[in-house]
């Protein structure tokens, strides 16, 4: 059996998304900026995709900008938001994705902003009192807090954070890469100034993402050249990527509650089975609390064992199970997860992120629990 439990890193594309994309590689290949019919038919497809995305998020099409992915979208909002508004101070947390953390650290290094990190406790909760304190002494800050953490799955209360930021005149950006396509976002009520998506996290294409920026915020481009994306993002549009991400989001919304129920069931069963069958198992962050974490992510902490120390992911792979220790972006680095380090996780224990999609099954969960029992010498 081959089990793919690394869906927070990337997901398999839905066949219907691929189907929607193929015609734009074969027959409708024009450059959307060309005025002839080859170009115009492709332009129509892009604008239809934008309208679809906007409709699903309850936003206006003029607030949606297509990018090459979540990382570019995060960089655009943060770097250009800071520059356009002359923002002097930024606030984020130590457990953000590197697309946010490294970008803001770089801005700080270049002397563009002073960077403050809001306190996070050992469960991964943002200290909202500390956030307010930081905002009070630094009004008009750029605040970047993710909707849900990619490693431990903790979900933050964007409404509460957004209201706080608004009270102090800040710019609120949220990295929503892990919740887009899995949770509904109603941008008429959600108090964020910008948020992002990466298509490949919800069965859409890699190399395609989007940035939402609220109408009243106007920022300058990040990539210059050409009038594409209403002068906000130069470069010939990735037509198949744009068609694909819109289709993927549409499919995600079509049966979100069905997907959610299916995956939640897997996750609950996984948690229960591990608690019953693996002695001394625990869970990092709030990932075992169904109400407070992504239904797609479970970060498991396993006790020290000589056979598995530093080898658990390798051993899982030998048994056909694909999971990860943290973010794929840093999985090459030997430094380990910056998120778990911030949570002061016991380095003696082994942490594994299992992340699920609607394509996973209960058999795969049972198989994985069985293999973990074998690896930890638990009698059958």
């Amino acid at each position: 059996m081959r089990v793919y439990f690394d869906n927070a890193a990337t997901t398999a594309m839905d066949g219907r998304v691929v189907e929607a994309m193929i015609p734009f590689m074969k027959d409708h290949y024009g450059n959307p900026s060309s005025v002839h019919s080859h170009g115009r038919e492709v332009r129509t497809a892009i604008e239809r995709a934008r309208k679809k995305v906007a409709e699903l998020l309850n936003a206006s099409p003029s607030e949606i900008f297509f990018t090459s992915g979540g990382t570019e979208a995060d960089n655009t909002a943060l770097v250009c938001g800071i520059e356009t508004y002359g923002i002097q101070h930024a606030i984020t947390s130590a457990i953000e994705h590197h697309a946010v953390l490294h970008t803001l650290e770089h801005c700080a290094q270049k002397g563009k902003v002073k960077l403050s990190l809001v306190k996070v406790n050992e469960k991964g909760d943002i200290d909202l009192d500390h956030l307010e304190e930081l905002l009070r002494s630094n009004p008009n800050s750029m605040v970047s807090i993710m909707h849900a953490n990619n490693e431990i799955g903790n979900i933050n209360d964007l409404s509460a954070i957004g209201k706080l930021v608004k009270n102090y005149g800040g710019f609120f950006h949220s990295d929503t890469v892990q919740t887009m396509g899995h949770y509904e976002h109603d941008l008429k009520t959600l108090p964020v100034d910008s948020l992002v998506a990466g298509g490949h996290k919800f069965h859409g294409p890699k190399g395609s993402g989007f940035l939402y920026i609220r109408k009243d915020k106007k920022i300058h481009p990040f990539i210059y050249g050409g009038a594409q994306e209403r002068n906000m993002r130069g470069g010939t549009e990735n037509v198949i990527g744009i068609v694909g991400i819109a289709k993927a989001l549409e499919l995600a919304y079509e049966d979100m509650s069905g997907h959610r129920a299916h995956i939640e069931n897997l996750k609950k069963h996984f948690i229960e089975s591990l608690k019953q069958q693996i002695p001394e198992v625990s869970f990092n962050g709030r990932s075992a609390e169904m109400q407070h974490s992504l239904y797609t992510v479970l970060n498991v902490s396993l006790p020290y064992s000589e056979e598995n120390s530093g080898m658990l992911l390798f051993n899982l792979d030998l048994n056909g199970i694909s999971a990860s220790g943290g973010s794929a972006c840093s999985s090459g680095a030997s430094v380990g997860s910056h998120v778990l380090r911030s949570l002061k996780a016991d380095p003696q224990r082994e942490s594994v992120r299992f992340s699920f999609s609607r394509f996973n099954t209960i058999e795969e969960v049972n198989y994985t629990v069985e293999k973990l029992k074998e690896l930890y010498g638990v009698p059958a």
Partner: protein
Amino acid sequence: MQYPVYLDYNATTPCHPDVLEKMVPWFSQHFGNAASKNHPYGWIAEDAVEQAREQIAQLIGVKSKEVIFTSGATESINLAIQGIFNAYTNENQHFITCATEHKAVLDTFAYLESKGAEVTYLGVNSKGEIDLSELQACIQTNTKMIALMWANNETGIIHPIQKIAQIAAEKQIIFFTDAVQAVGKINLDIEGIHLLALSAHKFYGPKGVGALYIRHNHPLPKPAPLIWGGGHEKTFRSGTLNVPGIVGMGEAAAIRLQNMQIENRRLALLRDRLENRLLEINGTQLNGSKANRLTHVSNISFAGVEGEEFLRMLNKKIAVSSGSACTSISPKPSHVLAAMGIDSDLGRASVRFSLGLDTTEEKVDAAISHVKESLSVLRS
């Protein structure tokens, strides 16, 4: 004959059928994140990316480790120009480019000017050629980069890249070239070039993927990253890799390496047939030098017609443009032709014909007769 006849290959090209076929398995079957280090989904994706990198390196004649994947040439150009500007901090910086560059270069320099950089825009003669002694004369002690395109997208004019590279080398200045229209079309001698931008969709690969060649083994600075995050692409470019796009680009490069020479000879004959017949018509003129020029491009002005009306009529049966696709929405005459001293009315009534894989003699003849018909209607 199927209308409209596509003669706008400089704007974009259709994906080669073999490219599409190579890409399909990477959407839903081998969908791993190339940065996932703990399981075969990631390893397989990473291998595919490295193979594509090798294919592209072979096409342009560089080492594969010097090729960085991006979302397209515009991003590559921004990374090269903004990246060098950011690599030198707190200095008065001077850059040299040319008035006939692509918007992606010109707009990026305009942004640098707004940040305090000094930019010299070289002029061109009526044939679209730069004057090398003028280039030499405007080099200053604080000149950080010479940015000149390999081949012009509107006229096909090829700059004397080797001589420019020599001048840059003598003065120890970074030489960046936008080679979007040259890669996969002509043999490239990259000696002395520090940075080179390319795009897949201009040589029968997919949109949304490009690359930047970053030469190693020289003492001048390398560009600072534009997009920050997980540290992909040796930290030059963060963001999950667009694996299917990259695989497609690699395959497209391999095909071009095989077919380029034969295809060029075929297209040269067809282009000359088209050009000679059109230049026989009264009140037409060729824009740009006939000598150093891409073999598949012809830019012709038609006197005595109003440009916009003419183009609209042409577009009923031929997909051509009056200049770059990226500026084709704008009613202004081409900045390239303006720099060559062509007056604005004639500039607006100029047409870029660019030929490619599916161009046949029959299609060329159909285009010729439609141009003649349109002219006789509009000139009567």
